[in-house]
């Protein structure tokens, strides 16, 4: 196959990557006791640690804070995270799996599901070399 420079490139097969997007009600942690928070944190560490040990984690992920701005066409700006729905994104990680069903299996273990939140699994389009 040829790159845009006209030179041949070898295609190398990589494990597929999937994004796991976590959502929960706005600021769910307010109102939790310190013990409950500790417990939740531990659940996440166990889950993430398990994935890391199995080589399923592509990166440590990103945790999003409570601030935000939303920018829409015609320069419309609203304060706060995207608020068309009551759930907001709290974080994203990238996992490695053979296909989306494999990634979904991994997602089933996510602690957020025990705390009223949701997980969205999406395939990632490789950016690669152009």
């Amino acid at each position, binding site marked *: 196959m040829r790159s845009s420079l006209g030179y041949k490139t070898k295609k190398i097969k990589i494990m597929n990557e999937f994004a796991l997007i976590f959502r929960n009600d706005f600021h769910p942690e307010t109102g939790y006791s310190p013990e409950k928070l500790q417990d939740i944190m531990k659940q996440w560490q166990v889950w993430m640690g398990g994935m890391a040990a199995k080589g399923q984690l592509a990166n440590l992920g990103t945790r999003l804070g409570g601030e935000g701005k939303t920018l829409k066409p015609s320069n419309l700006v609203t304060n706060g995270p995207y608020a068309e729905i009551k759930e907001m994104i709290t974080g994203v990680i990238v996992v490695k799996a053979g296909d989306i069903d494999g990634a979904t299996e991994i997602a089933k273990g996510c602690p957020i599901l025990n705390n009223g939140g949701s997980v969205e699994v999406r395939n*990632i389009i490789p950016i690669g070399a152009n």
Partner: protein
Amino acid sequence: MIYRSEPMGEIKLTAEGNLEVSKEWENWMGGVAAQNKLVSPGMRLGNEGRTLKPGNIITNGPYAEVKEIIGGLSIFRAESLEEALELANNCPILNVGGNVEIRDIIQMNG
């Protein structure tokens, strides 16, 4: 930076199966990079999806409580949300009726 828009159908790929980046996106992101404010170009999400909810509820498709779905996300560096907002001003997704959600990132220790 989280990019949302209504589903745009099939995603264009190069011959090697990689994302075909439009000139607009490349110039916009290159411009951010030229200001030394790009931390990561991030990822483009495909059209496959599964949504998991409590009680073992699993549905096919991207999360779609509203008609817009997430197309991708990137990470920028800025002094404030306002400065980040400025960087987002020329994001090509705005030209197709989409929007950009800007969120601060909580630093996690190693």
